[in-house]
């Protein structure tokens, strides 16, 4: 029986990073603020709360790579679905296509690294495997969904930074997380939000509305 993607393994949270992320997300959902006031389908919430499974139980660099590949593949599918949806304005659709390509580059590099370790990468998910993806109805929904997925990915990479053994993978992870942060800038700008809300991008900040422009 196949599991929904991102439910890699269930288990106890072993880092406060993941626990804090979950706590802020649950709280934000409860306050109706998870998308800066935007409406999100209830079925999307399981996607957002499953980050604990992405990394918490991973053992060794191979396990971390498997989980990271899963996140990148999910992002590829999400951006591909978004780009083909016909719901995005041309510049946003162009960004979705670019980000799909870049997430694929991440996945390819991580798969190569996993092969070097003798591991086997997970199969890529289908769009129907990505919970919440079918519920997005318009450009705003898509952008908010993408932001939450990118933030989850940043949380996971920051967590991995403390667990990876290989110095080369630590460096590659930093190059990748920097790119995910740049995705966040573009997505936030497309929603009229503050593109860089905090000095330490840990994927945890509450999404800020755009700062008012002064005279």
């Amino acid at each position, binding site marked *: 029986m196949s599991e929904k993607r991102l439910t890699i393994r269930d288990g106890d949270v072993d880092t406060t*990073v993941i626990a804090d992320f979950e706590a802020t997300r649950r709280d934000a959902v409860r306050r109706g603020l998870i998308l800066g006031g935007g409406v999100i389908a209830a079925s999307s919430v399981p996607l957002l709360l499953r980050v604990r499974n992405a990394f918490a139980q991973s053992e060794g660099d191979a396990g971390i790579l498997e989980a990271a590949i899963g996140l990148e593949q999910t992002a590829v599918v999400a951006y591909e679905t978004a780009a083909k949806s016909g719901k995005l304005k041309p510049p946003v659709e162009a960004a979705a296509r*670019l*980000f799909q*390509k*870049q997430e694929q*580059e*991440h996945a390819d*590099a991580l798969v190569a690294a996993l092969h070097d370790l003798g591991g086997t990468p997970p199969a890529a998910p289908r769009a129907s495997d990505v919970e919440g993806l079918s519920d997005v109805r318009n450009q705003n929904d898509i952008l908010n969904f993408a932001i939450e997925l990118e933030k989850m990915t*940043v949380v996971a*990479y*920051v*967590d991995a*930074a*403390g*667990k990876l053994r290989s*110095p*080369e993978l*630590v*460096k*590659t*992870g*930093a*190059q*990748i*997380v*920097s*790119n*995910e*942060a*740049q*995705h*966040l*800038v*573009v997505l936030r*700008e497309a929603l009229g939000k503050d*593109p*860089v809300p*905090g*000095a*330490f*991008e*840990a994927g945890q900040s509450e999404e800020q509305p755009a*700062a008012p*422009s*002064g005279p």
Partner: protein
Amino acid sequence: MNVDQFLRDPVSRRRFFAMSGVGVAGGSAAFLAACGDDDEESFAANDVEILNGALGLEFTAVAAYEAGAPFLEGELKDVGATFLAQEQEHVDGLTAAVRDLGGTAAVAKEMYDFPTLRNQRDVLRFANELENKAVAAYLDAVPKLSTGDLRRTVYTIVANEAEHISVLLGALEQPQVPQAFVTGSAS
């Protein structure tokens, strides 16, 4: 010299960053000499040296955003102020980390020898160059830090510098996310 000359001349740029007190590539001799030693103290000393190198670049960035502020207009004025404040937060965080390790934190230089800034575009281009240098330095540093805590913190800082780059590129009307793997080489 002006910003165009500065950006085109690798010798001037190397000299500038050397004077900022930062070894950008290849790590430090002290670290390499201590490599292989399991002594916790030498790990902490290496971490201090690496973090102080990063601090040097952050102080440079603070000084640059201060120097550039008068040239920024409209929304970019707010952007410059925000980025200045965020670089200062990096300074504060790195300073605290060095002190927690029992080290002496680097301090800002009294004066920085920047290229001549004539207008907003000069400021944006110079800031972009500095941000890219910071990213390159952090990428070099992060695998050499000895604790998970420090590596996680540096991930969040380098991600923030990458965000600065995207905003600056947008203001310069260039593609905001040019690389799938951010390397800190300004294209």
